[in-house]
């Protein structure tokens, strides 16, 4: 090992000589004076100051606090404006379409009102004779009856059903005697008709045909035996 390093010395002989030949740097002339002044004045500067050792927790605590605050801000801060959910919001309607729809609706409403007026005009004429006939018998009861605060679509008169007088009602209304119109009908969704598989259909047809043929043969054999 010693040989190796002595070889190394020889290898870098010139370099070592060059390094040794470097001029000796000397301290400034007032070095000692300045030093003594510092000592007398007890001006020890940074020499006395003990460098605080690196503390991992102290070093990273402030940054960790800042990071956690930012994180909490993003987690808990309520959004300033409600974010529109495209699935929840109604689709925008074009002005031309809305105008057309509105005009259609208005036209329909007008037509409906006219038809109601016409019906109302016809009904009193027809019922006038009926009222004239039944006024004597039904007058006290009709006067005493309070107006029913229910709409005709949602309520059902059970007396009319029992007596059989409610003949004008549709089949749908007849079926909804109990809880008629109180609750919305449950909608399970559209029934999607599945297209039958052609191969399975052919198979079934072939089996049915073979069964029919076998039955026909059996019948013919029976007839022949007889």
């Amino acid at each position: 090992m010693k040989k190796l390093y002595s070889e190394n010395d020889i290898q870098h002989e010139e370099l070592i000589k060059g390094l040794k030949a470097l001029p000796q740097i000397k301290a400034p002339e007032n070095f000692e004076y300045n030093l003594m002044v510092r000592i007398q004045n007890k001006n020890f500067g940074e020499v006395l100051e003990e460098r605080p050792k690196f503390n991992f927790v102290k070093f990273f605590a402030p940054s960790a606090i800042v990071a956690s605050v930012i994180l909490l801000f993003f987690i808990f801060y309520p959004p300033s404006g409600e974010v529109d959910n495209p699935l929840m919001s109604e689709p925008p309607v074009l002005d031309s379409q809305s105008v057309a729809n509105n005009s259609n609706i208005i036209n329909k409403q007008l037509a409906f009102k006219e038809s109601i007026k016409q019906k109302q005009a016809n009904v009193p004429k027809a019922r006038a004779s009926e009222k004239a006939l039944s006024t004597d018998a039904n007058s006290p009861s009709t006067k005493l009856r309070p107006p029913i605060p229910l709409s005709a679509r949602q309520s059902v008169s059970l007396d009319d059903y029992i007596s059989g007088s409610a003949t004008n009602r549709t089949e749908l209304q007849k079926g909804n005697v109990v809880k008629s119109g109180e609750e919305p009908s449950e909608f399970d969704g559209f029934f999607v008709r599945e297209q039958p598989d052609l191969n399975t259909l052919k198979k079934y047809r072939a089996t049915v045909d073979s069964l029919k043929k076998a039955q026909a043969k059996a019948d013919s054999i029976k007839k022949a035996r007889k």
Partner: protein
Amino acid sequence: MNKQLSELSDEEVIKEFQDNNTLEAYEILVKRYKDPLTNFVFRFLGDRDACTDVVQDTMIKFYLNKDSYRSFAKFSTWIYTIAGNLAKNELKRKRRRNFFSINSGEDERTPQIEDKAFLAPDKVADGVLKNEIIQKALLKVTPVYREVVILRDIQDFSYEEISEITGLAIGTVKSRINRGRAQLQKLLKNIYRE
């Protein structure tokens, strides 16, 4: 008394300073070591002002912590250890300053040592310029290698003494010197041929 103190060895002088707090003893040691320490620190840092400050701090540390010296160690190794540690701290501080400064040491940027096509050989051989080039190359050597190369080849310390100063094993010291010299040789290949 002064004459007697100046004739004593370093260890004896510091003992006098430790025992009797004799300021003359301290001054003698300062006189003995101010130049070698200045040379060592300057070769390591390459900055004259910083070097003077570091040597001053070394002497003040020696003054304040005289009792921490133990007589079984050589005084020279002890004071070089202090100076070396302070120099390394200064180097770190300097690097930090350069890292955070705006011009990031543009003025201190040394010219390329390896590429010296622009220098005539006779000028390279010139002593002053050569010394400057060697010093600049020395500053480009990795600090851990630089320190041991300076201690060995400039300050003439033995491997054992360098081992004491740096606190490294002798084998590590030798290998570091070897690597440091190799780096330096590579940087100064135009001046020194292997």
